[in-house]
């Protein structure tokens, strides 16, 4: 992102000495903004100004990597329709070190089991937060070790005691866990611990002003792998903080807040907790730490996350394989459509309503609608015939009738010729499928 003339001007000494070859600092700022001059020609810029100008050119939110492939931050819009959200929220389940070894094992098994396959997509939980609540440093290190041995997911180590944290961290440092929390009281020891082990660290303060202050102090230790925690633990306050942090980092390039943000759920009732977590996923949290690890609670949250982080510019597609609706049999009709999700689900919904078990074969049209695909040469009879062969429909039904969208009636002759099937021209709109289906059965 290029700097504006005003941003540059504010960092210049305003001497108007002309030593840079440009008569005024204002004109020099303009020359810099348009790339016609180099900052080095000004002998009076301070190191701080140089640093400010360098960092202003960096992305608004730093990308932080940790654990097993977790990438957080590096976002640049407030609304996904402006472009897209890039890095899906990292979801982490909380595990206390007050659990017994056996309970830790049970919890880990439950967390490892949080894998879902749905509509052709695979979801899994990202990590485990090991929370130091026992007050016993040795116990904390032991539990961290058990968790590290019991899962290959990303780790978050949470303790306010730098000594306990160090003991837990050092044996698992190669897993690059996220650690925390650095507060006003302990930040020097904590940030240095993170720096020595090259792991990212959570900077936590109560409220945005205190957070700004603490981040600036922590940066002075010459380390910048940070994740922010504005300290709020209610949904309303957290929503407000998340919004301010994202706005300030992107709109105002406020550098101390140019880091990903972590949020913690506070509701103890799991259904309320998932609602709360959904808000954080929608409103800019890069990491959300949850208590519940029950499959039925986690699936809707992961679905929301997947949905929000899809790219709105790219059409959403369904898998171009043979789908069946209802309890299909050898007499079930076969509908052809495209793999654009809006198109496919419009057809599927109507076929379902018809109460006649049916097959639907979406042709791979790169996620475009029927007419768009037809106009672009992606819905040709040869291609449809090929897809029919490939999906093995001929072995599944005893009839040889295939129903095509009414808008492409013109391909029926050719399709019949290349496929050897009888082509039935269906209604133009999928809303006509219900009455149409009665006429064919």
């Amino acid at each position, binding site marked *: 992102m*290029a700097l*504006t*003339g*005003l*941003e540059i*001007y*504010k960092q210049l000494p305003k001497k108007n000495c002309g030593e840079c070859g440009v008569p005024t600092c*204002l*004109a020099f*700022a*303009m020359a810099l*903004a*348009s790339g016609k001059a180099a900052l080095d020609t000004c002998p009076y810029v301070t190191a701080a100004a140089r640093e400010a100008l360098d960092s202003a050119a960096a992305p608004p939110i730093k990308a932080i990597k940790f654990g097993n492939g977790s990438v957080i931050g590096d976002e640049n819009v407030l609304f996904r329709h402006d472009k897209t959200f890039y890095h899906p929220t990292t979801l982490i389940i909380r595990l206390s070190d007050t659990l017994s070894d056996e309970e830790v094992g049970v919890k880990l098994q439950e967390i490892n089991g949080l894998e879902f396959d749905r509509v052709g997509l695979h979801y899994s939980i990202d990590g485990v937060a090991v929370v130091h609540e026992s007050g016993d440093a040795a116990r904390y290190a032991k539990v961290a070790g058990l968790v590290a041995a019991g899962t290959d997911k990303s780790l978050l180590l949470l303790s306010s005691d730098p000594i306990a944290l160090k003991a837990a961290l050092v044996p698992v440092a190669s897993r690059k866990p996220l650690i925390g929390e650095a507060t006003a009281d302990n930040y020097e020891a904590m940030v240095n611990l993170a720096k020595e082990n090259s792991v990212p660290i959570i900077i936590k303060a109560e409220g945005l002003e205190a957070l700004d202050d603490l981040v600036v102090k922590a940066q002075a230790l010459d380390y910048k792998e940070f994740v922010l925690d504005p300290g709020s633990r209610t949904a309303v306050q957290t929503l407000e903080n998340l919004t301010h942090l994202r706005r300030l980092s992107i*709109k105002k*390039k406020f550098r101390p807040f140019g880091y990903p943000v972590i949020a913690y759920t506070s509701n103890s009732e799991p259904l309320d907790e998932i609602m709360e977590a959904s808000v954080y996923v929608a409103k800019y949290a890069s990491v959300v730490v949850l208590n519940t690890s029950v499959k039925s609670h986690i699936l809707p949250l992961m679905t929301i996350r997947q949905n929000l982080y899809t790219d709105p510019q790219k059409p959403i597609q369904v898998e171009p394989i043979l789908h069946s609706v209802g309890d299909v049999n050898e007499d079930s009709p076969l509908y052809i459509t495209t793999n654009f999700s809006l198109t496919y689900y419009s057809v599927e919904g109507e076929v379902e309503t018809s109460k006649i078990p049916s097959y639907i074969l979406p042709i791979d049209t790169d996620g475009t609608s029927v007419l768009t695909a037809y106009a672009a040469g992606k819905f040709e009879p040869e291609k449809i015939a090929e897809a029919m062969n490939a999906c093995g429909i001929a072995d599944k039904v005893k009839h040889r009738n295939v129903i095509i969208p009414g808008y492409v009636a013109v391909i029926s002759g050719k399709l019949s010729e290349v496929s050897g099937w009888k082509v039935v021209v269906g209604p133009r709109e999928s809303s006509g499928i219900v009455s149409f289906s009665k006429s064919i059965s």
Partner: protein
Amino acid sequence: MLIFGERINGMFTDIGDALRNKDPKPLQYWAVKQQEGGAHYLDVNSGPAIPTEERVAAYEWMVNVIQEVSDLPLVLDSTNYNAIEAGLKVCKRPAIINSCPAEQVKIERVFPMAIQYNAGVIGLTMDKKGIPKDAENRVAFAMELVAAADEYGLRMEDLFIDPLILPVNVAQEHAPEVLESLRQVKMLANPAPRTVLGLSNVSQKSPDRNLINRTYLAMAIASGLDAAIMDANDDDLVDVAATAQILLNKSIYADSYLKVFRSR
């Protein structure tokens, strides 16, 4: 895209006479008519119709009689800053000061006044020496105005940079330079200052004025124009403003977008 209706100007005979006779009717007629046409602001200019010593009182009177019939915000257009200040005092809604060149003395008079009355400022990319020919020098003046806004605490959204379009029949080479200036002004600050043109100037003394106006308007909007002082009752021209809004994805499309644009 904001339309600043240009018609209440003492240079027009009916308005000039009305000012001399203290007859509010023509002013009120044009206030309502321009609002119906699609104007978002009304430009108010006494022109030379009123002797200098009476201008302060005249601006107060003009603002009052217009506000009797229209709730549109006003653009107070004068080189007499005392007259503008008199007008600002009676404005019910935040107004815009038209205008301030990039001259230190005038900036010192206008910007604090804008802050005091919560008004916007139209900043002209010129100084005492006149209007620069190329985009580069226009933008340099714009930068001085931007720096002044920052210094005085005027919000960038309240600064309207006017890169000064000249008649195409006598100053043809300025037209593309103004388009380039519009593009570059948007890079000066974040958020960017807004931009404005005295649009009708481009077609002074040319035939087919409306055609020239609306063609240039479309080109200027594509280059980053946010507002124009223009004929709010030239329906074809307002249609261009509405259509450009749609084609730049600034308003959500609807089949009735021309009507929607005017009804706001």
